[in-house]
C-alpha cells in the first residue's frame, strides 16, 4: 500500500488537529509524502471535527475521500464516515464512547483513568494503537512524541504504549527508501518565507484561515527578533504596517476577505504613498462571513482591484507549501524594490493543510534589493526618476526630510492639485509596473505539469495545483498553473498553452474568476469545473468531473 489515508475524528476540542499532525509526522518517518486535510466547524467545543492524513510515495497536495484507517473518538466519527471506508479498512475506536460492530474497540476511557491521565490523552492512546495495527515500530512513535509533545510527555508516552500493546499488527506498512521530509502547515511555510524575506514585523488581527501565521510567528518571535502585533482591528493593522514601512521596517500583515475589506483604505494608501507592504490574504467561502472554516477561491478579482484609485500592485497565488514559502520571501523583496503592496493569495486548503515540505524544491531566493538614497543632494521622497522607483530614506536619516502623503503630492511629498504634476506623479507610480513585469520575466510565473505536450489542458490556480497535477498525470493532460496575476505575464501564459486545443478551468468558486481573467486577456476557456461548497476537490472527484467533459 503506497497510497493510503488515515482519518481521525472526534468533537471540536478533542485534540484531533494536533493528533493529525503527529500521525503525519509518524508516517513521514517511513519515507511517505504527506498531505493533511482538516475539516472543522466554527465552534470551540462540540461539533464534529476530522482530519484526513493521506500518505503517498510521491509528493501530494490533496486528500482522498476513501480512508484505510479510521480512528474514532466518538460515535459521530463512525456514523458520519462509514461511507468513506475502503474494503479492508482498519477501524479503531474508544469502546467507552463508541458502539460499533466493526473494528477494534479499546476502553480508552478506563486506561486513561487508571494512569490518572486527562481526557485529551485519549488521542495518544489511539495513536499508539494505530501504530501497532499498521506495523509502525514503538521507537518511531516515541521519537515523534518526544519531538512534538511538550506538556506531560512521559504520561502521554505511557498512555500511547498502553494503546500500542492492546492491539495486534493487522498490516505492515511498507517503509519507503526515500528522504524523510518534515510536515508543515501552509501557514508555517508562510511564516518561514516571511522570515527568509527579512520580515521584522508581522501585524494581524486573528482570522481563520491565517491565524496560524500569527501564532507561529509569535512563538518564534524571540528566536528571530520579530515584533508581532495584534491591534484593535484590521484598519489599524494596515495603517500600522504603513507606519513600520515608513520607518524602514519590513512588515507583513495577514487576514481573510472580511479583514482585508477593512485594510483596503490602507492598501490604496500604500499605492499612493509608495510604502511597501506584504499582505497575506487567506480566502474562504463568502460573501460576508460565509463558511469561516472552509475553503474557497473567491477573491482573485478582489485582490486585483481592492482599494480606490489606480496603482501598481503585485499579486501572486502560490499552490503548495514550497511555493508559498518561496513567494512569501520573494514578495517581500519585490514589494521593497518597487515600493508597492504585494498580495499573497492563499486559501484555507493551503493555509491550514499540512504538507511534506522540501525546502530544496522551493528555489533560491536572491534579491532583488531596494534602492536606497545616496545621501547626497536634497532628498526628495518621490523623485521622479525614469523607472519610477525613487530612492528610499527613512526618518532619522541625517540630512533628509522624509515626507509621505496620501494626497497627490510633488517630488518632496508636499500636497498638490496641479494638473501637470498630478499626471506626472500618476505616471511615475504606474510606470513601475512595466519594470516589475520585465523583472518577473526571469521567473517562472506560469507553470506547466503532467503531460506537457497534451492538447487538452487543465487550467488551475492556487491550492488546486496538487489535485490537478494528480489528475493530469493520470489522464495524460497538460496542467497549466499561473501564479503571478499582477502584473500578468501574458507571454509566459501563451507559451504555456501553446498547442492546446481545449482548456478546462478548475476553480473553487461559483463564477470562474480565473476563466474570466484569461478571457480578459484574449484566451477563451472551453469548460469550467467549479466547486463552491467549501470543500476542496479530491483527485477521484476531479477525475470523474474532467472525464465527463
Amino acid at each position, binding site marked *: 500500500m503506497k497510497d493510503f489515508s488515515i482519518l481521525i475524528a472526534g468533537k471540536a476540542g478533542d485534540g484531533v488537529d494536533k493528533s493529525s499532525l503527529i500521525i503525519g509526522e509518524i508516517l513521514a518517518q517511513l519515507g511517505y509524502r504527506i498531505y493533511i486535510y482538516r475539516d472543522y466547524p466554527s465552534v470551540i467545543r462540540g461539533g464534529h471535527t476530522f482530519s484526513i492524513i493521506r500518505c503517498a510515495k510521491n509528493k501530494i497536495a490533496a486528500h482522498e475521500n476513501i480512508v484505510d484507517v479510521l480512528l474514532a473518538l466518538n460515535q459521530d466519527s463512525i456514523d458520519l464516515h462509514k461511507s468513506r471506508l475502503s474494503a479492508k479498512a482498519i477501524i479503531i475506536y474508544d469502546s467507552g464512547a463508541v458502539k460499533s460492530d466493526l473494528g477494534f474497540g479499546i476502553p480508552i476511557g478506563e486506561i486513561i483513568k487508571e494512569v490518572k491521565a486527562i481526557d485529551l490523552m485519549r488521542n495518544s492512546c489511539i495513536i499508539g494503537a494505530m501504530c501497532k495495527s499498521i506495523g509502525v515500530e514503538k521507537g518511531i512513535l516515541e521519537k515523534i512524541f518526544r519531538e512534538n509533545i511538550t506538556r506531560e510527555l512521559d504520561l502521554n508516552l505511557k498512555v500511547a504504549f498502553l494503546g500500542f500493546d492492546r492491539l495486534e499488527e493487522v498490516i505492515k506498512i511498507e517503509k519507503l527508501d526515500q528522504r524523510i521530509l518534515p510536515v508543515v502547515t501552509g501557514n508555517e511555510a508562510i511564516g518561514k518565507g516571511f522570515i527568509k524575506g527579512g520580515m521584522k*514585523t508581522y501585524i494581524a488581527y486573528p482570522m481563520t484561515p491565517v491565524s496560524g501565521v500569527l501564532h507561529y510567528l509569535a512563538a518564534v518571535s524571540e528566536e528571530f527578533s520579530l*515584533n508581532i*502585533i495584534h*491591534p*484593535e*482591528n484590521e*484598519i*489599524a493593522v494596515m*495603517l*500600522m*504596517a*504603513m*507606519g*513600520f514601512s*515608513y*520607518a*524602514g*521596517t519590513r512588515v507583513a500583515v495577514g487576514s481573510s476577505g472580511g479583514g482585508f475589506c477593512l485594510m483596503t*483604505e*490602507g492598501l490604496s*494608501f500604500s499605492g499612493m504613498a509608495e510604502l511597501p507592504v506584504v499582505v497575506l490574504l487567506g480566502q474562504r467561502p463568502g460573501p460576508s462571513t460565509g463558511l469561516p472554516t472552509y475553503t474557497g477561491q473567491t477573491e482573485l478579482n478582489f485582490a486585483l482591484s481592492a482599494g480606490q484609485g489606480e496603482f501598481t500592485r503585485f499579486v501572486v497565488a502560490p499552490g503548495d507549501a514550497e511555493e508559498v514559502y518561496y513567494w512569501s520571501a520573494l514578495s517581500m523583496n519585490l514589494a521593497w524594490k518597487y515600493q508597492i503592496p504585494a498580495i499573497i493569495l492563499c486559501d484555507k486548503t493551503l493555509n491550514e493543510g499540512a504538507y511534506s515540505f522540501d525546502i530544496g524544491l522551493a528555489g533560491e531566493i536572491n534579491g532583488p534589493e531596494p534602492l536606497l538614497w545616496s*545621501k*547626497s*543632494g*536634497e*532628498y526628495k521622497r518621490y523623485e521622479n526618476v525614469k523607472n519610477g522607483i525613487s530612492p528610499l530614506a*527613512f*526618518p*532619522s*536619516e*541625517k*540630512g*533628509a*526630510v*522624509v*515626507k*509621505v*502623503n*496620501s*494626497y497627490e*503630492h510633488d517630488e*518632496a*511629498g*508636499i*500636497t498638490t492639485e496641479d494638473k501637470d504634476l498630478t499626471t506626472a506623479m500618476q505616471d511615475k507610480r504606474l510606470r513601475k509596473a512595466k519594470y516589475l513585469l520585465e523583472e518577473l520575466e526571469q521567473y517562472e510565473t506560469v507553470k506547466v505539469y503532467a503531460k506537457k505536450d497534451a492538447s487538452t489542458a487543465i487550467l488551475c490556480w492556487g491550492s488546486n495545483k496538487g489535485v490537478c497535477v494528480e489528475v493530469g498525470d493520470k489522464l495524460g493532460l497538460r496542467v497549466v498553473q499561473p501564479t503571478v496575476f499582477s502584473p500578468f505575464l501574458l507571454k509566459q501564459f501563451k507559451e504555456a498553452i501553446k498547442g492546446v486545443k481545449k482548456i478546462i478551468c478548475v476553480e473553487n468558486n461559483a463564477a470562474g474568476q480565473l476563466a474570466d481573467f484569461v478571457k480578459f486577456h484574449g484566451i477563451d476557456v472551453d469548460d469550467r469545473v467549479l466547486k463552491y461548497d467549501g470543500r476542496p476537490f479530491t483527485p477521484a472527484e476531479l477525475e470523474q468531473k474532467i472525464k465527463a467533459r
Partner: protein
Amino acid sequence: MTVSNSLTTNAKNTWCLGCGNFAILNAIKAVLGVIIEEGFPREKIVIVSGIGCHAKIADYLNVNSFYSLHGRVVPVCEAIKLANPELKVIGFAGDGDTYGEGLEHLIFAAKRNIDINIVIHNNRVYGLTTGQYTPTSPLGFKGRSTPKGTTESPINPLELMMASHANFIARGYTHGIELLKKIFKEAIAYEGFSLVDILQVCVTFFNMYDYYNKRVYELKDHDPEDYAQAMEKIKEWDYNIDSKIPLGIVYKKKIIK
C-alpha cells in the same frame, strides 16, 4: 545633504484668516525649535496628520512627516514609535478625525501607553467638508447635516481618555500661545502616551472665540498627579454646559522608574 534649517516649507498656507490652526502651528514650531536647539536631532522628529484642515500642518512643517488618512493618525504614530523608539512622534488630528472616524485607535493607544503625543485640533465642527457636527459639538448644534440641531450630547474626550488609562491629559486653547507652548513642551517630554485636546476655533463655521474667552481659565494650584483632582477638573466642563473651562495639564501619571 542639504536641508533647510527653517522649520517652514515653501508650501502656501491655505488656512482661513484667524484660524486657530495658526496658533498650533506657531506653538509647535517654537517648541520644536527649542528642542532642536537643546540638541535633539531634528531628523528624529516625525509628525503625523490625518485628513481635515488641521492635517495641512504636515505640508507646512519642514520635518519628517506622514500625511495619513482620516481617523488613522494614531495607529501610524504607534507603529513609527514601535519601529524606531528613538524617534519623537507627534500626531496632529481633528476631532471628527480621531474622536469620530478613528476613536477606537485612540482608546487602544492610551491603553497600550505607547510613547506618542497626540494633539487634537478640536474645533467641534467639520471644516473641510463645510460645516457638519462632530462628536464634541454641543447639543442642538445646527450643521449642514443637522439643520434642525443635533439631539445628542457631546462626548467629553478627556473623561474618555481617563477611562482608557491615558497617562497624560491636557487641554489648550488657540487664543494664548504661551500656554500652548508650555503644554506641548511637557507633553512631548513625557515618557508615555499623551493627549492634548485643543479648543481650536474655526472662524468660518463655528466661531467660539467670544464664548471661550468668557469661560476659560488656566489651572493654578492643581496637582495633575492627583487622580481625584484631575477627574474633578475634567468633569467641570462637559463640552456642553456653559460652565468655566479649565486649561492646562489636567492629569499626569507619575512615572516610577
